[in-house]
């Protein structure tokens, strides 16, 4: 039980990643797939943040003069996650706009039916 608690962030991250991948591989509605993509990206972000956590660390901001650098969490993953989130947003936005377009052309979002390009 304590194992679960200790690693809850990791478990959440891996869980989100796996759920996202499962949705993307197995679901047939494009919107669901995009949601899955979102899950997947969130999972990765959580993983990144969790990887940068240092037990007992505070946010890496020197808002008071008496804060110590030794007591802070790693700032790099936070910067990375910022970037990763923005990239994720960009991909999601593009995916949604493509979904709009796809619906106009095919009248459906069922990916099993949208199979004009094959072989």
């Amino acid at each position, binding site marked *: 039980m304590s194992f679960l608690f200790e690693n809850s962030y990791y478990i959440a991250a891996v869980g989100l990643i796996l759920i996202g*991948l499962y949705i*993307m*591989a*197995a*679901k*047939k509605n494009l919107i669901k*797939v995009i949601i899955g993509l979102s899950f997947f990206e969130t999972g990765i972000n959580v993983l990144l943040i969790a990887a940068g956590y240092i037990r007992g660390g505070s946010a890496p901001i020197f808002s008071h003069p008496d804060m110590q650098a030794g007591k802070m969490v790693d700032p790099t993953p936070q910067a990375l996650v910022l970037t990763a989130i923005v990239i994720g947003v960009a991909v999601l936005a593009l995916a949604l706009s493509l979904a709009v377009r796809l619906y106009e052309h095919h009248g459906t979002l069922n*990916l*099993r039916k949208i*199979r*004009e*390009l*094959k*072989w």
Partner: protein
Amino acid sequence: MQIILLTSFGGAFATYLLAKISSRLRDVCAVIVSGLLVVFVALLYNKTPAATLIPSFVGAPLTVRLNMLSWFFAIAIVVVGFLSIVFSFSYIKGKERADFYYLMMLLVNAGMIGIVLSADLLTFYIFWEIMSWGAFLLISYNRGPALRAGMKYIVMSVIGSVVMLAGILSLYAVYETFVFSELAGRIASASPAYSLACASMLCIAFAIKNAVVPLHTWLPDAHSEAPAPFSAVLSGILIKMGTYGLILVLYLFVGVKLFISPTYVWRGFRFVLLVLASITILVPSFIAVMQNDAKKVLAWSSIAQAGYIILGITFGTTLGFAAGMFHFLNHATFKALLFFGIGAVEYRTKTRDLNSLGGLLKRMPITFIAVLVGTCGLIGIPLTNGFVSKWLLYKTLILEGSPFLAFIALIGTWGTILYGYKLLHHVFLGQLPEKYKNVRKAPASMQFVLIILSLAVVVLGILPGIPLKLINTIAVSMGMDSMNINIFGIASETGALNTVNILSVLAAAGIVVWIILKASKKSTRISQEDNYAAGAAIPAERYSYTVDFYNPLYRMIRRYLRDIFDEFYYWIAGRVQAFSDMVRRLYVGDVGCYAMYILLFLSALILSQVWWRVW
């Protein structure tokens, strides 16, 4: 040397560019280029220049050189090339994309010159490929069935060059050089199995070009569908590039001493080659008999004649080598002559179907004489060059104790006689069909070519010493025994060849026959319709005896002479196509599946590491 290559390649493109200005200029330029090449190559007789084209190309220099062997091939190439360009003058006039045609003709020519000049395998391969794709574009030129022929040609050709590439690079992997002179004889030092593998890879490539039997299937289609002047080049010299390659491999790399030595490996290898060569003589000769397309007859005949050449060369004695080389030269002359002759007929009558032609003797006399001479050469009638080379070959085979091979070669010659006569008869003799009543004789440029080549056939037949002397020099330079050559033939203890004797015997026989004919009763000419036909007048058309010419023979041999290899290759091609169609179905079009592929790949990697620690 560089001038030759520069002229040949630069000339090709210059011709193409000039063609954009005027077609007259193009013709003139093409002739000048090919004529210049003849002059240049002739000037280099008995010289041995060497040069480097590019100091370093993928880590090895591109070098060229000239020696007797390559000069011998080069002169044949440039002469036939020149004649084919002259012949093309009227042949190609008025056809579409003539500029392109000239470009490719000159380019293929240039490629072939490059092949024989090259001093290392890399250069050789480059020019070989240029020749191959140039020929592909020319074969496809006629459209329609030519497309299929072109595809067949290029696929086999690519297979050949791929195998050759593997062979060349296997050699390189061991000896780290492409240069002929450094490779020469060094194969002897490698392990027999390895050198055999390299040699056979190269031999397969050359055999494809040379149309040795199991690999011949591209040739009949390609030869018959290509434009006539190119058929002449194709049959006369292009396929002989394979011969040149074989000579390089067998005589230079392996070394003739080793090749004919009775070691286990090489004896077997030589035996296989000899057997293939004799099959190549035997079967295509009779397949040619059954053809009804004039150029198909010639095409199959080319395979068979190439078989003679291979037989002579793989036999490996000086005399055999001389026979092969001389037959190469002869085949270049008479087969080019025949293709040109048939080309002239096709140009006038627009057909090559033997069953619908006939009686053109009166309409195209010079063409007839040319084809007659060519056929005589093909069959090997004395006083034509074909006789000399075949005689040399038989003599070799019998002297060296292979009477069985000699017998096969002889049977092949019977086939040659049959189809040679068939060709002559169906086109020029017999009944002239009504629609060809107004056929004119061939244009002057074509006649010029025909006459030149006919003269060559006869002159080489009477004075065989000229090329044989050359061949002797080549043979000696490759470490073989010398022959005793005089201008009229060979002097040797067992059965000398002297064309003067033959000439006098024939002259005497001719006089006797003439006297007999003179002395006997004079024949009377009667009209064709002047005979009894059960009261009905038979129209002249019905006197055409061309269909089902050798009917009994057909019925005898037909069932044995299916081209099973062709069918087999088609079957393979079909299988490959079907299989690749199956492979294509992997891309099912469903993105979920694709996502699964990615996950599959990843989990396979992970699993292999976690479970088996593969990586």
